[in-house]
């Protein structure tokens, strides 16, 4: 049984905005999967759907989501509250905003433990302390009594991770956990996540728009565009042998290796489509240099490139050559 199994998930906001349009994704136990894509591609929406964090009145969710064998979309509010925390928990992008400013970090961790488990306050505090040691916060005893604003950015994110791990979840969701941090701290946090994943056997879904971060920690990468997964595969396959023009575009738009001063970065022309008015065919077609007539008319199905490597592109066999993917070299 896989840890997370999403089948044909569709999320619509306000009846018009198709934020997620038929996502199928499964994550094995102990696997780290990165969802990458630009802003508005539906990656965060997919992640939040796993916890059903969207406002219920304005959101329509179709398809199935199974986490550790539980049907998430069928849960009652009560069951949902018990599910959030001990089964799945989440790390937010900006820890300063995701931690309550008027309570100490220790209080916030204890609060979650006490919510889910019948333990004494003393025990909860001991657990919080152990978590702080686990995420390597220096002088943890003292930091438990610190307020979020008294900590540095990197330390806050460590505290946030400790908070997410408070009830020993099986699946950890990370929504751009390093975006708000500076470059030197980013790598520390990524290494910590990878290490925790290995030691605790966690499954992690990790949303980012930083391809470098994705390669660093993920076993598999799924590239999202306009609410769909356009290409997925192991991190290695995707970097070495990208098949979807969008993935190729993303790879080419990075700064790579030693670049001459003044060298222009390759950008993908155009902007993502309006999610309320998606084109009938491939949603990337209007921006795609390799697009052919059938791309405008119907949506490309998911083609199997090799093993678990799939791409939603009619021209998956010849698009890379035309777009110069080979010229990417060893990325």
């Amino acid at each position, binding site marked *: 049984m896989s840890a997370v199994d999403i089948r044909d998930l569709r999320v619509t906001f306000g009846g018009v905005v198709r934020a997620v349009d038929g996502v199928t994704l499964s994550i094995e136990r102990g696997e780290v999967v990165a969802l990458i894509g630009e802003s508005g591609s539906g990656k965060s929406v997919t992640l939040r759907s796993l916890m059903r964090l969207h406002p219920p009145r304005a959101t329509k969710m179709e398809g199935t989501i199974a986490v550790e064998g539980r049907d998430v979309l069928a849960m009652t509010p009560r069951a949902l509250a018990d599910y959030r925390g001990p089964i799945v928990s989440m790390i937010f992008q900006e820890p300063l905003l995701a931690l309550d400013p008027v*309570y100490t970090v220790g209080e916030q961790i204890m609060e979650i433990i006490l919510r889910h488990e019948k333990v004494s306050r003393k025990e909860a505090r001991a657990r919080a302390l152990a978590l702080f040691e686990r995420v390597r916060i220096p002088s943890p005893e003292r930091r438990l009594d610190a307020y979020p604003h008294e*900590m540095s950015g990197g330390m806050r994110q460590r505290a946030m991770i400790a908070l997410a791990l408070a009830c020993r979840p099986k699946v950890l969701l990370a929504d751009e956990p390093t975006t708000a941090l500076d470059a030197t701290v980013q790598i520390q946090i990524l290494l910590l996540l990878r290490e925790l994943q290995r030691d605790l056997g966690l499954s992690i879904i990790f949303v980012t728009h930083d391809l470098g971060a994705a390669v660093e920690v993920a076993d598999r990468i799924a590239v999202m565009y306009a609410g769909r997964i356009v290409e997925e595969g192991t991190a290695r396959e995707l970097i070495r042998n990208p098949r979807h023009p969008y993935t190729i575009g993303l790879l080419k738009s990075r700064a790579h290796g030693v670049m001459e001063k003044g060298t222009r970065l390759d950008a993908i022309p155009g902007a993502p489509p309006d999610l309320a008015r998606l084109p009938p065919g491939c949603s990337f077609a209007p921006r795609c240099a390799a697009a052919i007539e059938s791309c405008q008319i119907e949506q490309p199905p998911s083609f199997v490139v090799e093993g678990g490597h799939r791409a939603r592109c009619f021209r998956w066999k010849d698009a890379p050559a035309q777009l110069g993917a080979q010229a990417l070299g060893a990325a």
Partner: protein
Amino acid sequence: MAALAQHTLAAPAPAEKADGYWIGVWRRLRRDPVAMVALAVIVALILMAILAPYLAPADPLRGQSLRRLRPIGTAGFPLGTDELGRDMLSRLIWGARLSLFMGITPVILAFFVGSAIGITAGYAGGRVGTVIMRTIDVFYAFPSVLLAVALSGALGSGTGNALVSLTVVFVPQIARVAEAVTTQVRQRDYVEAARASGAGPVTIVRVHVLGNVLGPIFVYATSLISVSMILASGLSFLGLGVQPPNPEWGLMLNTLRTAIYVQPWLAALPGVMIFFTSIAFNLLADGLRNAMDVKQ
């Protein structure tokens, strides 16, 4: 593994000693000289009200018709006497009791009622929130003085009724602030984070909403105390609040009105008290707001 450990342990910033939130607020407030003077004035006024029986040189209710409207500085009557020959100093000291009571009590009552209404409306949002807030807006549409006078008039004069009508005046104002702040807090990431860790609506309101909302409402309520004092004095002035012969600054202002051509300085004294007290509360509220603002 060893290399990893080294990597992740790098560069911890030294943390300052963690203090409670309110200790931090107090520390910043103490550095604000204006707020501290205002606080000293308020503490002095409250002490004066409590210790009135010991501080007042004479009985505030006993008058002598032979020595009416003596000017400030008369021997035995440092602040003169009023239109019935009662000692002004004693009446002003005793008046602090009723005036402060009438200023603070409605705000405290409205703080609880208004916060409850506003937080409920703000957290519920949607249709429930709209219905509650539009109902509140009906009360808010009336100018506060008009509403207070109309309610007091309808309920009849007297201290208790004046308290009730002032509370009704302040509930909508506080509820609106509470609703606005709650709506903001509800959208914060930490509320979503709490939900993502399995907190139900009750926990979220009790812990995260109350913790973040009560501070700003409290500051706003502090600034209402001066308004409340002035309104209460106004009601008493109109004969709707405190009844004679009880000493209350607004009422004293009213009864001394007739003497304004004879002893203008004397007639102004209760007004001076109201002025300083309300300004002190306002400045304290300002200082408190600044002191609580420095979160980041």
